Every structure is written in structure tokens, then in C-alpha cells.
């Protein structure tokens, strides 16, 4: 698939909750070809600091010609990106990487999302065909991080189970606690997960125990995002003796049983 490096324009930047922004970016070429689970590399500044572009998963294509990104402010790069205003320019490279397997009609899918990791799963849900039964398990630290996903029309259109670490919204506990209970009642055809590494490892273990197919979207510091620098690897279990896979081109979405979780 063709990749693009574009000087794009921000159409809208909305604060969904403290530090959590929704950016709609006009980039027709990428919007037309991005698939759920893929990411873009963003750079909203000139100059050398910060140096590298920031990899952000595409959260959807809400209107023709634009992509939706959910960006949480965590460091200098995301501070600059979330500080953009409508009309500002931003460099976008994409679409990059391999995305999720789309659930087929008649399948049941459990989404397991941790915080802003909800974004690429939202894109799956947006594209999901009729006849897929899905439950969206969403975990966050505290109530304010549940505002964005719960207010989102795509996610709130599904059955949603919320957990927070401090119990200020939904059940108190981790998203994996809720997922564990649900798996006891009914096993889905697949689990699709995105979130922090510890959560993904726990989801992978639950899926393996239940014998359910599971795909995880992995995170890594990233150089080029194009498979050229070999900077973003994760340890994998591969029958051919391969030790590492590239998050940017082999992933970011992997079968959970391909990842060597012991290595983390």
C-alpha cells in the first residue's frame, strides 16, 4: 500500500478531557487508505527538538478526507501536537504498519482497551460490519480518562464495560478483571487489545487460557516508522528462530501468542 508524507492541516482540535485531545486532520490520501490498527507519524514543529515524529494510531475516518486522532499529552511531542489550532499545519506520514483482522459477520469480538489505547479499537468498531456482536472493555486510572471514550458515538453505540483503578467510574479494578469474568460467561471469537504493555500481557494470558484468538497492538519507541532503521523491535517466538519483529512494519498489531511476553 502506498505511503504518503504530507503537510496536512488541522481541521479541529477538541479537548475531550484533561490532557486528552481529539484532532481531526485533513489528509485525503491517508484517510482514503488507512485501515484500523494502522498508525501515522506526526510532527507539528520544525527544528530538531523534539527530534523524531510521534507515532499515533488512527482512531477513525469520521468524514471524507480526514482522519481522527486521539492524542494524550505525555511529553514534549504530544504537548506540541495537542497545542495545535484549527488551520495549523502538521506533517503526517502514513498510513503505516499492519492493522487488526476485521471481525466477520456473525462473530463475537471483545475489545480490550487501556486508556488512549481505545483509539485504534474505535477505528475497528467504526468500520465493523453489521452482524458483529461486540463488547468494549475499557480500563483507565480514573474517571476523567473515561470521558472521551464514553462520549464517543461509535464506542457508546456498543455494549461498554468500564473499569477504573480507583473505582470513580464503572467497576473498581483493571480491565482484565472485567475481561476475565466475561470470558467465564461467554468466549468470543476474538479479542482485540490495545493499551499499556502490562495490560496487553495480562490480556494475552487470559486469551491463551481461554483458547481465544487475540491480537494486540504493541507500542515501541520508533525511528522511521518505515522498516528502514530497525529501531522498534519486540521479542517474538518464531519457529524459524527469528528473535525480533519490527513494530512499525510487522506490526503494530500482532497475534498475542507470537509475542515473547517473558522478554518484557
Amino acid at each position: 500500500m502506498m505511503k504518503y508524507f504530507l503537510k496536512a492541516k488541522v481541521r479541529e482540535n477538541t479537548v475531550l478531557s484533561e490532557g486528552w485531545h481529539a484532532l481531526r486532520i485533513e489528509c485525503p490520501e491517508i484517510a482514503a487508505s488507512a485501515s484500523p490498527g494502522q498508525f501515522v507519524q506526526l510532527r507539528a514543529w520544525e527544528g530538531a527538538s523534539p527530534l523524531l515524529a510521534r507515532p499515533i494510531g488512527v482512531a477513525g475516518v469520521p468524514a471524507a478526507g480526514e482522519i481522527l486522532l486521539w492524542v494524550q499529552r505525555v511529553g514534549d511531542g504530544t504537548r506540541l501536537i495537542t497545542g495545535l489550532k484549527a488551520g495549523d499545519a502538521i506533517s503526517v506520514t502514513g498510513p503505516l504498519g499492519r492493522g487488526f483482522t476485521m471481525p466477520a459477520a456473525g462473530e463475537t469480538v471483545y475489545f480490550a482497551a487501556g486508556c488512549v489505547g481505545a483509539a485504534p479499537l474505535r477505528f475497528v468498531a467504526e468500520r465493523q460490519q453489521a452482524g458483529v456482536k461486540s463488547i468494549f472493555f475499557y480500563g483507565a486510572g480514573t474517571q476523567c480518562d473515561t470521558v472521551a471514550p464514553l462520549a464517543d458515538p461509535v464506542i457508546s453505540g456498543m455494549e461498554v464495560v468500564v473499569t477504573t483503578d480507583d473505582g470513580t467510574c464503572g467497576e473498581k479494578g483493571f480491565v482484565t478483571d472485567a475481561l476475565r469474568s466475561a470470558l467465564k460467561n461467554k468466549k468470543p471469537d476474538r479479542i482485540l487489545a490495545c493499551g499499556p504493555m502490562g495490560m496487553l500481557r495480562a490480556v494475552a494470558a487470559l486469551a491463551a487460557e481461554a483458547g481465544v484468538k487475540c491480537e494486540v497492538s504493541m507500542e515501541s519507541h520508533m525511528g522511521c516508522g518505515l522498516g528502514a532503521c530497525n529501531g522498534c523491535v519486540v521479542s517474538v517466538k518464531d519457529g524459524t528462530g527469528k528473535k525480533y519483529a519490527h513494530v512499525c512494519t510487522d506490526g503494530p498489531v500482532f497475534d498475542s501468542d507470537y509475542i515473547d511476553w517473558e522478554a518484557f
Partner: protein
Amino acid sequence: MSGVDLTVKIGRLTLKNPVLVSSGTFGYGREFADFFDINRLGGIITKAITPQPRPGNPPPRTVETPAGLLNAIGLENCGLEAFVREKMPYLKTLDTAVIVNVAGASEQDYVDVVRRLAEEDGVDGFEINISCPNVKEGGIEFGTRPEPAAALVGKLRRETDKTLIVKLSPNVTDPCEIAEAAEGAGADAFSLVNTFRGMAINQETGRPVLGNRIGGLSGPAIKPLALYQVYRLSLKSTKSIIGMGGIFNTADAMEFIYAGADAISVGTANLVRPTASLEIVEGLEAYCAARGVGRIGDCVGRAHE
């Protein structure tokens, strides 16, 4: 066209312009072909090739630092045979110079790669990597003392008539000593600098961030250091020089050319802007045209005056 002559000679090779892309930052070329016509470049320097495949270092392999990037990739590559089978067919279609970066743990490793590729159409030259800071057996032992450097280059010279470029490490007391020895053994050109050894420590754990503990620093942070090394070598050596280290734009490239580089190589900037190298090709032409410079070669080493 502007009429500016951008061609430069590097050893036995004539490049259509002085802009190369550094090993390990441009894959095998194809990774960037969606973004621009890579035949516009003066040439491509491939990811390092070793005789056998190498998995590379454990993650994390990169850390961003102020205006810089620390990496410890560990020479991950598909190995010589897979390179010939899977990468060469594409490289052969290119209308630009293809320089293969060669690494190894022993003299024989380097000889094996150069001997195998010496007769391949589509390989125009070799960059001999004796300066990888991230692998114990990555050739650095040939890059830190003059005698092993000369012995290795002498062996490789007997294997090929193609251009031999020796990539120098800045992590030595005097890169010029290594260059002088390599020049005496038949090196055609030098590329410098490879990355500067560095590290980063995690504030929470107190341990090194990189899986390999130490890495090599690249990016704008090293540009003045790299520029000085290029300037210094160009005062001493008559061989061609490819200058690199933090080149981000046309102004950076011109600094290296004025310092004495015949050609320049864009590295970390490729990761930041996939079209950075093309922007510099176009920028150099515009720069020369605007100043009435007919031949970019006339700018080389002006800083010596």
C-alpha cells in the same frame, strides 16, 4: 535546469550529485520509494551486510535525546545471501549509485561479503564499516588502531576494483591516523563520522535505557563535532571524503562541503522527514544557482582558505 554541475567524484565513482543517504537510515532504498524518486539521489548506502543474518540487539534500541538519537541496533540484517536474493534485484533497477555497507567480526567476514558482491552488477562500491559502536564483534577492532585497519583494507583491495570507502569512527584519539593507514592500503575514500558513543539512564530504575546499555549518538546534536572531524581529515588527506553527522538541511550540507567533504550523507534526518535527502539535492542546486556557483566541487574545502 539551473546549469549547476552537481556531479562529484568519490574514489572511482562519479555521483550525479553529492547527496548520499547513510547506512542504517534508509533501509535498502525501497522503503522510501513511495515518497520520492530515489534515483534523484547521488547514491544510496545500504544497511550493513554481514555474511550471516544477525538478529540485532535486544530492545530498547533507540532513545531520543536533545536534538539527537541514541541507537544500538546491533547490525540487524538479513545476511549476504538473502541480500543478494531479496534486495539486489530492486537495487539493480536503480539509476543511482549503490554502495553496500559491509560489516563483520573477522577479516574473513569482510572478504566474504566483498568477494561475493564484487562481481554483482548494481553494486557500485563498498563502505567498509570499521566503526560500529554497538556490537563487540562489529568491526570496531579494525577501526581503532591503524595496523588492523590497513591489513583489512589491503585484503579487500585485492578483492575488488570497485570504490572502497572506509567509514571512520570518531571514538578514537585521532581518526586521521586510521585514515592514513587505510589510504596506504588502498582505500579510495572516507566517510565520517559514524556515531559518537553515548548512553542514557532511566530515572526510575537507575539503569541504562538501551538494551545494549551503550549506543551511538547521531542527529543535529553531533553536527559541530562531525564537522570538525571532516575539516581536520580533509586538511590531511587527498582522498575523497563523504561528510556526515547531523545533516538536516541544505545549510548543514554546505557546511560539510565547505569544511572539505566532496559528498555528504543524510542519516537521522531520513527518519524525521522521509524526503529530507531530496530536499537537500534540490536545495544545493538552488543554493549554487543563487550564488552563481557553476560547479559544486568548487565549494569543497573553502573553509581551509
